């Protein structure tokens, strides 16, 4: 039964991830049937590549540090303070995370680039500087820290810290000795996720970095898609693979440590209105940071979409409905991209929820937990490894997956190269990790004894699951589905590499419009970006309503 559950996610990953990636890497590393491991030395010895590796690590570390610095106070504010509009704001800060990088890059350029808003006001320009990359990374990952750390912080019992104060500890000492140790693993987990996302950063670096900055992911893309130098790409893919695997292993370890017993309370009981000048200052400071760093780029985006040729108007929006106005960029009206995106997104969500839900269920089956002897059985270790494997698609270049699809899924009955399903399958690969991360904590929290009681009373395993687990995890399931949906909507990398009948998704349509000259195309790109933003924000707002009080997901 356990193996049966495992079969679906395992088959999915073997077929749509492992096989294509192995095929493309294998093609790069073999020559006439012989393995060419000498390539490693050649590629890694190249000073240009060494520079890329160094920059990749350096910018990821710097981005992570900066994100923590800026977002940790935010996590505290969201966890401990009650203020009007908190729910809405919590959803707003998560919007950047699901926005496509094309859109964010353009918004950042419009804000802090040459001739951007800041340039006009104060002559501040950040484009083609490393600061633009770092700030965009903070923009994307702010929510990761706020949600991961803030979620736990809100449930820590403040009375423990208060007790320490009563016993004579200073404010700082109490925080350092009581709260920080409890929070540490969550901070580490968030930091590692941010590191992972920024280490594999692609769009942001490409758009904001200019030609002088290149990360490993950008280099893999160039070597594969532009030069078709598969050997170099294969070596770099494996290097990135190893690095990502390392980060994920450490992440899995910190997450396990986090499951140590903490006394958690209902988050709604720990939050209250700020008191005293310091707390108000912290709240307003956080709001200011959110306004400048997170909202300003989005507002500029909205402004640009309404700035028509003759003053502000909705001309770019209304013209989205007709194919003629697009001047040949599309054979269909740009607005159709919205319906394409929704259909692909819905299919990807179904796949991601089924695969990710089953995987999460397997990972939390009771018998897999540590036995009374404290030893970890082999299968349990395998399952734990599977947990890490599920995250790998986040760390593998989309171009590797896309080109892998092309050369591996090319013979009937699996000639999916031009199939409609290829896009949702690629999107689901990115969605599954989010589903798993959302479901795991909730599934783990289900009391085994409830299930056992149902079994004792004569319920079949299926009925026990339906009557006990399902009602408890339904909300988490919906949240997972919403996240998978939003991530699918924003997915750009893999989608764009798949040769497909002309059904562009929103991000692809935006990129295509930006690739054309003329004011109409540019304005329409901004208008479509806004539609995408509204759909993503809408999905997230619905999630906020569904958010259970005791939810402490990992994203």
């Amino acid at each position, binding site marked *: 039964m356990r193996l049966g559950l495992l079969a679906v996610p395992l088959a999915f990953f073997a077929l749509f991830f492992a096989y294509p990636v192995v095929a493309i890497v294998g093609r790069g590393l073999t020559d006439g049937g012989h393995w060419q491991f000498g390539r490693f030395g050649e590629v890694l010895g190249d000073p240009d590549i060494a520079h890329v590796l160094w920059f990749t690590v350096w910018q990821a570390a710097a981005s992570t540090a900066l994100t923590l610095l800026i977002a940790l106070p935010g996590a505290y504010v969201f966890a401990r303070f009650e203020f009007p509009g908190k729910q809405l704001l919590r959803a707003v800060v998560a919007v950047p995370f699901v926005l496509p990088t094309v859109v964010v890059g353009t918004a950042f350029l419009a804000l802090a680039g040459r001739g951007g808003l800041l340039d006009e006001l104060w002559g501040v320009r950040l484009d083609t500087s490393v600061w633009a990359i770092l700030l965009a990374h903070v923009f994307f990952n702010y929510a990761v820290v706020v949600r991961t750390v803030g979620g736990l912080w809100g449930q820590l019992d403040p009375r423990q810290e208060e007790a320490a104060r009563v016993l004579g500890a200073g404010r700082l000492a109490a925080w350092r000795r009581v709260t920080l140790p409890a929070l540490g693993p969550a901070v580490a987990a968030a930091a590692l996720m941010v590191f992972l996302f920024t280490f594999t950063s692609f769009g942001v670096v490409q758009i904001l*970095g200019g*030609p002088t900055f290149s990360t490993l992911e950008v280099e893999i893309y160039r070597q594969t898609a532009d030069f078709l130098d598969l050997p170099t790409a294969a070596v770099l893919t494996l290097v990135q693979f190893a690095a990502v695997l390392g980060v994920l292993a450490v992440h899995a370890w910190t997450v396990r440590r986090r499951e140590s017993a903490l006394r958690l309370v209902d988050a709604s009981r720990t939050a209250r209105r700020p008191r005293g000048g310091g707390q108000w200052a912290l709240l307003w400071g956080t709001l200011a940071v959110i306004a400048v760093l997170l909202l300003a780029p989005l507002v500029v985006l909205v402004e640009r979409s309404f700035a028509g040729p003759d003053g502000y108007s909705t001309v770019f929006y209304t013209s989205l409905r007709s194919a003629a106005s697009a001047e040949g960029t599309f054979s269909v009206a740009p607005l159709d991209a919205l319906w394409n995106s929704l259909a692909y997104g819905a299919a990807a969500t179904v796949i991601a929820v089924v695969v990710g839900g089953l995987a999460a269920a397997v990972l939390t089956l009771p018998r897999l937990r540590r036995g009374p002897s404290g030893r970890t059985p082999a299968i349990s270790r395998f399952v734990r490894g599977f947990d890490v494997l599920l995250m790998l698609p986040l760390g593998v270049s989309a171009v590797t997956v896309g080109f892998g699809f092309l050369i591996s899924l090319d013979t009937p009955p699996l000639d999916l190269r031009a199939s409609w399903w290829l896009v949702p399958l690629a999107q689901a690969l990115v969605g599954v990790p989010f589903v798993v991360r959302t479901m795991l904590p909730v599934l783990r929290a289900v009391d085994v004894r409830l299930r056992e009681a149902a079994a004792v009373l004569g319920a079949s395993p299926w009925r026990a699951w339906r009557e006990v687990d399902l009602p408890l995890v339904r909300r988490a399931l919906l949240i997972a589905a919403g996240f998978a949906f939003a991530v699918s909507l924003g997915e750009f990398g893999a989608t764009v590499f798949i040769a497909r*009948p002309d059904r562009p998704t929103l991000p692809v349509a935006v990129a295509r419009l930006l690739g054309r000259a*003329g004011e109409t195309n540019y304005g329409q790109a901004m208008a479509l970006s806004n539609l995408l933003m509204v759909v993503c924000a809408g999905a997230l707002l619905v999630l906020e309503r569904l958010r259970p009080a005791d939810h402490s997901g990992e994203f």
Partner: protein
Amino acid sequence: MSTTSRITAAAVAAALGAAALAGCGAPGGADAKTVTLVSHDSFSVSKPVLAAFEKQSGYKVRVLKGGDAGKAVNQAILSKGNPQGDVFFGIDNTLLSRGLDEGLFSPYEAKGLEHVPAGLQLDKARHRVTPLDYGDICVNYDRGYFARHKIAPPKTFDDLIKPRYKGLLVTENSATSSPGLAFQLGTVAAYGKGGWQGYWKKLKANGVEVVDSWEQAYNQRFSGSAASKGKGDKPLVVSYASSPPAEVLGKKPAPRQAPTGVATGTCFRQIEFGGLLKGAPNEKGGKALLDFLLSKRFQEDEPLQMFVHPARTDAAVPEVFTKYGATIGKPATLAPETITRNREQWIKQWSSLVLK
């Protein structure tokens, strides 16, 4: 039934429904009645033109697009022998030799080739590929800027290194952008294999700026583009000869001249070809499709769909092109074999010369 479970049921039903609907709308697989065109993202044809071909030939046309021109070619190379479709559209002269060396195409002489100038027919002897359109990559200038500063805009490569144009030009990274590469190839054609690096040293000393993509260069940095809303800081940009007509399209009333112009002595010609893919499942249909791509009807549709010039001399070009576009007398060119042989080395040399 509780509210949440109803929402669940509704959501699942909606998702499944959408998936099923979309699945039904998916085109069927290859058969004798379907002919598949593989191309890049910029491929476009107006509906009535394509419908007329479908009606007349009895084939249904399926179009697959895969990324920009370079990526689409690389995808075709990766799936060589088991192609995704029957005809490939959009391999240009900078990539042509790679495709021919890999043996991507089967020979076929399309109908109407006699109307295509010999200069465009780069595979004249074997007809593995058919020229379908061309366009020029040239430096564009912002008319307003040069009028305001009372300077004559540059015309040639040599002009660009003159002190009066110092710090005015933005171009694209040769490694990541096809107009950027074309501009570099133009300088190779103009100054020779031994001289182009010297030229770029002078260009760098004269303050040329390099960005990663055409979008960035043209939409954000170029002061003459409408998209930059007057905030661009560079009055010279490497773009297409067809960019000035594109700036005018949709403007009412139509202006007397385009807001931007073309430095006609800085152009490099890109010719796009199509060909029958080797191992095409529907070879007969593929041949009919190639004939259609070279037909007058399709060729006259090309300019406004893809902003390129038709390959056929007898195809009429729309007024917006003739009125606002520039005629490029002598564009620079290089033999495709020379490009393929040297491309990577030139890009590497260029990168270390200009970017570091």
